[in-house]
């Protein structure tokens, strides 16, 4: 389960941010998880609850937003969002395309004091 190792780096990153910014508590973090990343949000939540966390993160809420990938259809040139791997072009139904993004795992914001 790679979500566990991702959560460890998430906790380390947040701890560093807390120290650098002189924060005592992080109450919420907003993650942007690409729809085409190999990360399952529920597994990530489970892992985040399970990993050892410092006091500053003890009651931190995890908010997850799914970020679609961007595609350009080889058939008709249309740009469209890809939420699932096998989504086809909504214009012509073509399944050949260039794909960009959708694989990010970003800490977008945090709410802290």
């Amino acid at each position, binding site marked *: *389960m*790679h979500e*566990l*190792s*991702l959560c460890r*780096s*998430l906790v380390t*990153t947040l701890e560093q*941010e807390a120290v650098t*910014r002189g924060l005592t*508590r992080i*109450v919420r973090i907003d*993650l942007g998880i690409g729809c*085409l*990343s*190999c*990360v399952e949000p529920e597994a990530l939540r489970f892992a985040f609850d399970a990993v050892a966390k410092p006091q500053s993160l003890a009651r931190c809420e995890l908010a997850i937003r799914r970020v679609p990938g961007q595609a350009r259809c*080889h058939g008709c040139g249309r740009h469209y969002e890809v939420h699932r*791997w*096998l989504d086809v072009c909504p214009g012509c139904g073509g*399944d*050949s*395309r*260039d*794909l960009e993004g959708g*694989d*990010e*795992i*970003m*800490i*977008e*914001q*945090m*709410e*802290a*004091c």
Partner: protein
Amino acid sequence: MCGHCGCDTQPPVQTRVIDLHRDLMDANHRQAAHNRAYFHRQRLTALNLVSSPGAGKTTLLEITLQQLQGRRPALVIEGDQQTELDAARIRATGTPAVQVQTGQACHLDASMVHGALHELPPAPGGLLFIENVGNLICPAQFDLGERARVVLVSVTEGDDKPLKYPGIFRDADLLLITKTDLLPHVNFDPARCLAHARRIRPQLPALQLSATSAEGLDGWLDWLRQLDTEGD
């Protein structure tokens, strides 16, 4: 705890929202870039071999290393959750190999590869084969600094594997269909498998081989040779 009666109520606190926009894979990206720079300086061509467990990665390596012997230096990093078994098989071919035991992790990451590099002798101009943990999901997210990612699919698996596990094919540089000597006995269509993979990665090149009969091996060795010229 509250200051009045000792209940669990948290006193209200003034919080603020901070924009971070930090990529959680940053540390791995940086380490992968460091590995890549090292490979470049050493003129070492690194390959990341990924597949499900049992697709024939180690067997492919054994036969490949025998062919390369005396012609080109090679190194191997073996990733498995447990045991030294695969590294022992590789060392039996006379090739230096390091086993990385990933413990609870289901993939290799760039820092595990970096750690293993310190245990390998230099091999300028050579090939470094990194055999990832047998898993079609987790290794997809982790750049190791490799020159090329090779995805193996054996004919004893379904030819719909690319549709079921698309993520690993997105950054693939080669689809290698293995165990082709078994094709008469299984319902696997190589053309269909490739068509599925190309829905994820258009123009993905593909090769077929059998490590048992050695059929198709020359195509694979040619591909390895050609990789260097393209990389420089």
